[in-house]
């Protein structure tokens, strides 16, 4: 498992390529990338992501291990940024590999659902009309019931 929490940008192309190259005997690689979206109307100046050092690493480890146990996976990668991000910046990515495609898809989907509401990150959006903490959605919590 490759788990990284960092403020620096990551190279999506290189990470994807390196992850895929490292897989032996795996027929499927799935990646998910989360990108800062501009906000309609007000316009997003920046997003600030706060996290809980120590607990974040523990949570990622737990979520990734759970995925490895539930599905027949080659490996799992999670990279998540914190700090200041601007529109079009990449916030985070996950990658999964498996022999058959269904496992890699399900595991990546699962990782995202759990990262969304079980990894201690909080996003604050700064627009021309002020700053606001992003509220969690009921649908994010409900998504966990799928698993």
């Amino acid at each position, binding site marked *: 498992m490759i788990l990284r929490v960092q403020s620096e940008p990551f190279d999506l192309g290189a990470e994807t390529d390196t992850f895929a190259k490292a897989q032996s005997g795996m027929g499927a690689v799935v990646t998910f990338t989360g990108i800062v979206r501009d906000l309609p109307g007000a316009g997003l100046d920046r997003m600030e992501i706060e996290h*809980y050092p*120590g*607990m974040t690493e523990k949570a990622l480890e737990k979520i990734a291990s759970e995925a490895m146990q539930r599905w027949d996976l080659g490996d799992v990668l999670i990279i998540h940024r914190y700090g200041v991000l601007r529109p079009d910046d990449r916030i985070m990515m996950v990658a999964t590999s498996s022999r058959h495609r269904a496992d890699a898809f399900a595991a990546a989907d699962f990782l995202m659902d759990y990262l*969304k509401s079980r990894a*201690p*990150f*909080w996003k604050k959006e700064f627009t021309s009309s002020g700053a606001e*903490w992003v*509220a*969690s959605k009921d649908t994010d919590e409900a998504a966990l019931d799928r698993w």
Partner: protein
Amino acid sequence: MDVLYFAWVRERIGIPRETLDTSARTVAELVEELRGREDRYAAAFADLSALRVAVDQDLTDFDASLEGVREVAFFPPMTGG
């Protein structure tokens, strides 16, 4: 015991962390104690349904025991990903 605050909980209370001597046996008792201290705590803990708590870096419930615990953290629902 270290008590940590994140996101708007941190902003309302005005500090990211503090070290407390407490006789609270559960998270709920600790919350009651904090609420009684100052208005900014009362404001931060006004609606527990909007808060989450981690004990020694594991997400838990407000009725969790504090026995042997070194670190408690309060924060809003997480918005990772």
